[in-house]
């Protein structure tokens, strides 16, 4: 019985492996003071999330984000970072009319990078109960505008909780 099942299981496993290999792969690493997330070879848009286990008083959240695309079919597109914390606070200040902080790129490849910050005390004062002693989830998403299609893109996110 076992002998007859194993080949099917192997075929199924290999199939799933090949399927997952053809899709974008995301990695996450939650932590007490540092959380990381990345995605490789997204095809159109992406969203990655990194979670700090809980917010603390007298701390600042420092966020490093980077995204790049390859093989853009059109120039003049906006490659941007849309960063939110616990779904409430938007970190990257929107560029006028764009909704995200962005830089305008030419054909083919482009990278956007930035270091952003959030004062946890100020955020808690503005949104009581949302930041102290609860998980802090940073979301980094993007959809290259007017890009005319890309070969693939990558994105990474690092969130660090630091004492003031």
């Amino acid at each position, binding site marked *: 019985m076992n002998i007859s099942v194993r080949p099917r299981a192997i075929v199924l496993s290999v199939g799933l492996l090949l399927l997952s290999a053809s899709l974008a792969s995301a990695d996450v690493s939650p932590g007490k003071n540092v959380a990381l997330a990345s995605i490789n070879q997204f095809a159109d848009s992406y969203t990655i999330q990194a979670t700090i286990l809980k917010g603390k008083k007298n701390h*600042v959240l*420092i966020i*490093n984000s980077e995204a790049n695309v390859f093989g853009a079919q059109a120039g*003049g597109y*906006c490659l941007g970072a849309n960063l939110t914390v616990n779904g409430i606070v938007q970190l990257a*200040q929107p*560029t*006028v009319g*764009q909704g995200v*902080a*962005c*830089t*305008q790129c*030419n054909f083919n490849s482009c990278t*956007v*990078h*930035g*270091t*952003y*910050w959030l*004062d946890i005390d*100020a955020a808690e004062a503005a949104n009581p109960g949302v930041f102290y002693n609860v998980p802090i989830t940073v979301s980094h998403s993007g959809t290259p505008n007017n890009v005319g299609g890309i070969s693939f893109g990558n994105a990474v996110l690092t969130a660090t909780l*630091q*004492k*003031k």
Partner: protein
Amino acid sequence: MRTHFGKHARRLSSAVTFVGLLTAAVPASAVVQSTCPAPCTKPPKTTISVRETAGVLGGGGVMPPLSGTLAKGSSRTQLRIETIFEWFSLVGGGTATVHAAVNGIPVQSGIFGGTQWETERCAASAFCLRTASFWLDLDAAEAANPGTFLGQPLTITVEGQSLGQPGDSYTASFTADVVKKK
């Protein structure tokens, strides 16, 4: 010579600290946010972050300086400064620059021994976002400028310039933190 320079550096440090405190005492405009808002009577020990969310570039496309103060410099530590400068460029071809100073002393960028990051050119009518990283070994900085860093408040100033584009809207941000060397 070194002693004379040291005295000069101390006077410069005092002046910068005074200006920093004076700046901190002035009510901040509504668009400048800081993790130690004015009057910032107790500067943070480790991390200071400041941003401008609705700035307008001045003459020559110069960004008014963003400034923040850490409590004091300690031996065997390094200062890291991460900056963002974003603007809408009406005129293409201009090179933007970003530079940082600590207690009035420019921080080297590593580009040809200079003190500013020369960023790539930006196209006309385009959204431009540039980032720059700086670091300062406080022991080395103190050795070069005695009395300026160790045991003194550290006032970090970041400035940007998008050449020849006064009146353009911009946002800017920096975060500076001290980390132990080991």
